[in-house]
């Protein structure tokens, strides 16, 4: 399927989900759906660097928070529409992603992971001490109940849901397009063997910088509407552990070598977490992720997609 057809199909599926949710008539569905979509974006973005290139980023929360705090900054500085804030957040997080890549991509394996974790700590410390964006006290964002788009008045949460749906579609389309083009081949060679990649003519450093920039920008976009969603943003929630952990766990559980894996992982795990939040408690979320992650690393190290592929291989006669 061509990228254009795939994009059109994704938009139709997205709209169908929206209309379906509307017919169901429970406003909470959009509230929960927003979080699941947000994880679709985060895990697809993480997977571009972590799954395709093999560089494990523990600092997803930092990019997410950068997006969220860009919104807070501009909300205070000069209010503007959320779509504009999303673009600004993408630029800010993309630039930070590029910078992080430039400073840390000469490191491999555990050292790279530690460096990304350290960056998240540094950024959080900066935000905590920056009173303009609320510092450790946090910042309030007042949003309207409804918003009027082209003459139609819709609930604000539905508006946020639609925005996040658009970002999720964008990140899936980008992720899929990369996997099918020359860039995807280049990323795979980096994951497999950088020395051999270089000697085949792959400019590994440049490709890794492209990956950190795209990955960072998408994560920032996921964070941009967050202050409007939550209403009160504090460093502990923007830099929350669940973002870093989920954006690693979801692609690994789904499967890291294709664009489908992070999508499946995010939808499954995200829904499970939402159900657990309503039925048991929100504190049990990370426990679920942890246990599933351990189970998958042992039973299906290539995720659900890998599991299905190996079944197909066994069933097809050689």
């Amino acid at each position, binding site marked *: 399927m061509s990228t254009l057809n795939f994009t059109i199909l994704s938009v139709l599926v997205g709209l169908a989900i929206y209309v379906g949710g509307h017919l169901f008539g429970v406003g909470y569905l959009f509230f929960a759906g927003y979080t699941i979509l947000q994880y679709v974006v985060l895990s697809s973005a993480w997977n571009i660097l972590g799954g395709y290139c093999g560089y494990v980023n523990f600092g997803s929360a930092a990019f997410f928070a950068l997006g969220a705090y860009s919104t807070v900054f501009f909300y205070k500085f000069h209010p503007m529409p959320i779509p504009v804030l999303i673009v600004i957040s993408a630029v800010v997080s993309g630039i930070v992603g590029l910078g992080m890549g430039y400073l840390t991509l000469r490191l491999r394996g555990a050292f790279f992971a530690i460096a990304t974790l350290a960056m998240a700590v540094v950024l959080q410390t900066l935000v905590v001490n920056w009173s303009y964006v609320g510092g450790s006290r946090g910042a309030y964002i007042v949003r309207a109940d409804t918003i009027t788009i082209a003459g139609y008045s819709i609930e604000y949460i539905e508006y946020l849901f639609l925005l996040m749906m658009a970002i999720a579609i964008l990140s899936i389309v980008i992720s899929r397009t990369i996997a099918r083009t020359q860039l995807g081949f280049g990323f795979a060679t980096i994951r497999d063997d950088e020395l051999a990649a*270089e000697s085949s003519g792959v400019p590994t450093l440049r490709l890794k910088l492209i990956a950190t920039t795209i990955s960072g920008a998408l994560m920032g976009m996921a964070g941009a509407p967050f202050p409007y969603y939550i209403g009160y943003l504090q460093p502990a929630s923007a830099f929350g552990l669940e973002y870093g952990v989920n954006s690693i766990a979801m692609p690994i559980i789904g499967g890291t070598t294709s664009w489908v894996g992070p999508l499946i992982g995010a939808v499954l795990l995200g829904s499970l977490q939402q159900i657990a939040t309503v039925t048991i408690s929100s504190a049990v979320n990370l426990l679920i992720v942890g246990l599933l992650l351990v189970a998958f690393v042992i039973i299906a190290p290539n995720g659900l997609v890998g599991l299905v592929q190996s079944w197909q291989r066994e069933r097809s006669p050689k």
Partner: protein
Amino acid sequence: MSALLHVKNISKRFGGFVALDGIELEVAKGERLGLIGPNGSGKSTLVNCICGALQNEQGSVHFDGEKMDGLAAHERTHRGLARSFQLPRPFVSLNLADNLRVPMLYTVHKRSGPLHADSIDARCHELLRLVGLDQKARHMPRDLTQVEMRKLELARAVAAEPKLLIADESMAGLSHSEIEDILLLLKQLNESGITIILIEHIMSAVMSFSQRLVVLVSGKKIADGKPEDVVRDPEVVRAYLGQ
């Protein structure tokens, strides 16, 4: 005729250990050069310095009239330098055809403009046929035997359409007939116009392949000349057999 590769007085140290000590080497266009030396004599370090995996501290490398110093490995590949690795390093998550597609997409593309997808496919299969792996185009590298892995390694280097191919111990651990296979392949490549440096321990292979032989011992070049003269050189005999 000017040399295709000119290595001028290069030196490389690892801490206090001098791996290469003032190596001079010229390789003419179309030549088949053998490079031998005991283990640890600096052969692979020399290859790494020529190909850009390591940067030499002294001296310089000129290739096809251009200075290579400071260029990254992939930039040297773009200019026509290709190598195979001593231990095969295939892209394990890509099938055989895709392994060859990488240098075509990133090197040949770059040099001669975009190729059509069909012509890349055709070229992949042509190369796999050349090394006798065309039946396994969709297989993964982990399904290959040792000799097939080495053939894939050579095919991937050739896929970059190099002017100079450095084959680093492509035959270690192979049987006699497998060595013949690879030698034949290298000679075919040479006839198609590729200059080749062969690094090898198996003397029968080196002697039948090389037009000229260079010997490295402890990071120094101790002999350079016709193969039959070099192997009789008392200094070379001493280095290999001891006194």
